[in-house]
């Protein structure tokens, strides 16, 4: 079975700083990583391949340097990597991104076999939209399974899949027909350490690189900034709070005395709280 995993290379958000004057992202020296949510999708795909046989292709759209993330995915054990890169894709919002990725997925189907399952992470850590997966599903007519915690059953011959999906207040057990788009929930598996063989293979592997034309895209008006109905009007840093923090003095007091003064300060900030706590504490 051929499985495709859509990934994104993202800046390591924990290390992002905003320039205090210009309010722009200081990208210099910020390391890029595979979007952490995508690793749960990749691991799930690798497990299915190991169990059922077949191949895992990883696909990403991004600048040429996104090749680095694809190579990393190969070290984890992916069999093939495709990089969709073209200046026409610059400035894509989620609608334009799903258009380009859907085209690349169709092309992958022609070249390497139609995938019954396309995986993505539940969202990225830079954009946080969770919209590209559903967009791809809609464009390719794949049955959409989002926030999947577990693939309970998969029968490629019968063309059926059953999953556990995280819903509001519980878990839905859904059964549907292949082909599907699955977005994996976080924390449901752990990415493997790739083998030494995989590392060697990854270092030598040729990454398949496609431009928009290579992916069979003829309507460039649906790509990048031109193909994006949303526009970013303004970018700004969060406002600092005007009011300063009130520090509770801690010098030369016992922990017990400090606790008492913290409690008193809390009640000063929230005069109604004491009464409410009393009612709670008294019980029904």
């Amino acid at each position, binding site marked *: 079975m051929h499985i495709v995993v859509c990934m994104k290379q993202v800046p390591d958000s924990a290390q992002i700083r905003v320039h205090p004057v210009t309010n722009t992202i200081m990208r210099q020296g910020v390391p890029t990583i595979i979007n952490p949510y995508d690793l749960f999708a990749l691991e799930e795909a690798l497990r299915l391949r190991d169990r059922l046989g077949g191949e895992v292709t990883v696909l990403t759209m991004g600048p040429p340097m996104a090749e680095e993330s694809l190579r990393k995915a190969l070290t984890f054990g992916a069999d093939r990597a495709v990089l969709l890169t073209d200046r026409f894709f610059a400035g894509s919002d989620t609608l334009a991104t799903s258009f380009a990725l859907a085209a690349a997925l169709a092309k992958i189907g022609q070249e390497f076999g139609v995938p019954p399952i396309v995986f993505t992470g539940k969202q990225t850590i830079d954009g946080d939209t969770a919209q590209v997966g*559903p967009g791809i599903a809609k464009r390719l007519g794949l049955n959409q399974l989002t926030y999947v915690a577990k693939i309970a059953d998969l029968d490629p011959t019968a063309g059926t899949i059953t999953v556990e999906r995280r819903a509001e207040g519980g878990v839905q057990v859904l059964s549907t027909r292949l082909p599907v788009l699955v977005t994996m929930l976080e924390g449901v598996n752990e990415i493997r350490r790739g083998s030494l063989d995989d590392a060697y293979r990854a270092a030598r592997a040729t990454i398949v690189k496609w431009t928009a034309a290579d992916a069979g895209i003829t309507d460039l008006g649906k790509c990048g900034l031109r193909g994006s109905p949303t526009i970013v009007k303004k970018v700004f840093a969060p406002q600092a709070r005007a009011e300063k923090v009130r520090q509770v003095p801690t010098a030369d007091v016992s922990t017990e005395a400090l606790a008492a003064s913290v409690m008193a300060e809390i009640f000063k900030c929230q005069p109604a709280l004491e009464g409410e706590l*009393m009612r709670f504490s008294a019980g029904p």
Partner: protein
Amino acid sequence: MTDAPKPAPAGRAGTKRELPEHFKAYKHVWVVVECEHGVVHPVALELLGEGRKLADKRGVELAGVVLCGDDLTAALVAAACFEHGADLVYTVTDPVLAHYRNEPYTRAMTDLVNTHKPEILLLGATNLGRDLAGSVATTLLTGLTADCTELAIDDEGSLAATRPTFGGSLLCTIMTLNYRPQMATVRPRVLAMPARQIGRWGRVVVHPLNLAEDDIITKVLRFVADRESDKAQLAYADIVVAGGLGLRSAENFQLVRALAEVLGGDYGGSRPLVQKGWISADRQIGQTGKTIRPKLYIAAGISGAIQHRVGVEGADTIVAINTDPNAQIFDFAHLGVVADAIELLPALTEAFRAHLSVNRLAG
């Protein structure tokens, strides 16, 4: 997604052209009212409150959209919509909508939009809302802004949706100028809950769904509800106590839970604690976790990175306990205590316990 947030260059997509003729009929503000299993998700009411303001500013009507499996649920949810500000409610009632599934819900929503043409369509940024919004926007080929924290109408009458990006380091305001409807999903708990106006009423517009169960490929085999005791009530708790890496070990997290228990609140933690496996993912507070809006928030041993800050800023009182006087958390806390949380938390728990029991005896 927009790869790097950048102000739109003048003269291109960023410029408002005259709205294409076929979009001019699009009017009114709609809120999709999530009501799975008959329970209205609070974010829908928050959205109705905000939608009311947007509709008034535009001089249009506010509609709730109710998709559900039976007429009784539809009637009850419609009543809740009117009491929270809706002028009218569109209902699509069909047994195939009893459980959420992407296919029939997307079909119902796109049918409704194409028939009644709203200019603004809002959904909660829940699992359901995000699953549905992405499909609907792609079907309609319109703009969708995810996980917003602020909505406004700009001078030209367009929806300006503001959201954190790059893990909350920056905010950006995103607009859909030349397409309709303008869609956005909004994070639960960032907008205020509107007051309920008992007895307020409006019109109900019933819309049919011409779809049989046999036409729908995906089946819901069963729904396993979370056990009540396991559910984190974080987003809607009045008091939240949370811990960070300053607690130094998983065992010490018990100190956070003990204080939360005495205060009758809920507990959570920063993202590193989830990554270390000290707490479950549904207890993560911050940009990629839950947004909370309690009356009292106590952060113990949390440094206060921007990703955490965006999730807790709505709290009335933020109390920060941290050994580092320069920790970022003191930039947005109301009350600061430079101390070791591991020592202070048990003392604070005891202080509250003693205070409350003494006063109870006195009362």
